[in-house]
């Protein structure tokens, strides 16, 4: 396990360096600044961890630093979601409005649920443990990604090669991260040996997807402005058609 873990660690570092190198070489950094900020923050956190492990700091300090770095990268990770949202929905004004409504109601639901959960608790019990905090941050990211993905699937929005890689890689990473964080927070002592290597595998797979997808710049397909229509008319027509279909469906069985 040690050798395999070490190989994964080196592979991860090599891959992140490659993603950053290709980003600079193919002039992608200017086009996807939030994504590359996230990659840079992950690389920076790796460097700090290397420095701490070489510098003979005590275990408790290293653990604290590790959790702080994890938290910071999880927060910066929201930038990736924003990057996806910005690029995919920008050309579609109407769908963007829909996305804003969906995301606002999601945030409202999350805040409402948290408020109900925390109501009546003592102040010292309100602050979660670092693993729970990261888990919750990832869960919120996952919810946002699910909402954006749902809208992309529902409206069949076209996506370029770069954004496809960004979305697939990040969704996989967040999804896998949630599962492994949940498992380690539940059975952290007994299962740690097996699950320790899993985040590294997730990390490497994500970086491979990003390496392949972000190798060169592929612009996002632009919508055809000629296809713009009167939404009021289309919506009313579809609602009427559904009404007719439902009536037809039930009334045909009465005859």
């Amino acid at each position, binding site marked *: 396990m040690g050798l395999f873990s070490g190989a994964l660690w080196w592979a991860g570092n090599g891959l992140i360096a490659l993603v950053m190198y290709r980003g600079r070489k193919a002039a992608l950094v200017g086009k996807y600044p939030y994504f590359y900020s996230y990659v840079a923050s992950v690389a920076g956190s790796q460097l700090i961890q290397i420095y701490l492990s070489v510098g003979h700091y005590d275990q408790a300090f290293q653990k604290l630093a590790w959790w702080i770095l994890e938290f910071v990268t999880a927060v910066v990770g929201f930038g990736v979601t924003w990057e996806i949202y910005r690029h995919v929905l920008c050309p579609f004004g*109407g769908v963007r409005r829909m996305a804003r409504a969906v995301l606002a109601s999601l945030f409202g639901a999350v805040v409402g649920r948290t408020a109900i959960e925390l109501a009546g608790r003592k102040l010292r019990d309100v602050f979660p443990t670092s693993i729970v905090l990261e888990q919750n941050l990832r869960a919120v990211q*996952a919810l946002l990604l699910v909402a954006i*993905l749902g809208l992309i*699937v529902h409206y069949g929005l076209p996506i370029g090669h770069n954004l496809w890689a960004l979305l697939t890689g990040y969704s*996989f990473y967040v999804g*896998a991260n949630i599962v492994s964080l949940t498992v380690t927070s539940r059975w952290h002592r007994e299962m740690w040996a097996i699950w320790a290597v899993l985040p590294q595998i997730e990390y490497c797979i994500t970086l491979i997807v990003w390496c392949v997808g972000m190798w060169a710049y592929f612009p996002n397909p632009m919508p055809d402005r000629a296809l713009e229509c009167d*939404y009021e008319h289309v*919506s009313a027509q579809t609602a009427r058609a559904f009404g007719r279909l439902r009536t*037809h469906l039930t009334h045909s069985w009465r005859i």
Partner: protein
Amino acid sequence: MTGLMILIGLVMALLLLFWAAGRRRSDFGANRAEEESPVRLPPKALLGRCLSIEDVEFAAQLGCPRILRLLLRERRRLALKWLRQTRREAGRLLRQHVRAARHAADLRPAAEVRLWFHAGLFLMVYEVLMTAVRLYGPFRTRAFVRSVFAMAGVLTNLGDRIAGAITAGRGHAVREAEGT
């Protein structure tokens, strides 16, 4: 919380798969003829013929249970096919709407939600009918639908009468109050 986390993971994986499948058969440049066509309802007469009781009576008169069973099986298959046709039409309508709506700059979330509600309502009725036909066959389903409509009619009449009685009672009370 664990259940929720796993659920989110699963939903994400599912959506990714769904989306990947959608990419392959991308409808971005779908044919316009389909887009502009009106509602294509499956003929009512076809279902009427499928549910014709005379055929069943004739088959029953033959005194051969195998023929009767075959007839009932075939009628069930035809009824399910008719229902699936309406479902396909609903899918086409929704796709047509989505194709137009994604380019609309004036898209209204409330109107979209209302449409989803309409689509959901249709799907619910469709699923109820599909389940009923699968479990009890088309003839009993028709009887069930008729009795539901009859009951709805009775309840509507009852509601109307109660409302009428309340209005009349109120009018009477007002007249009495004015008289005194």
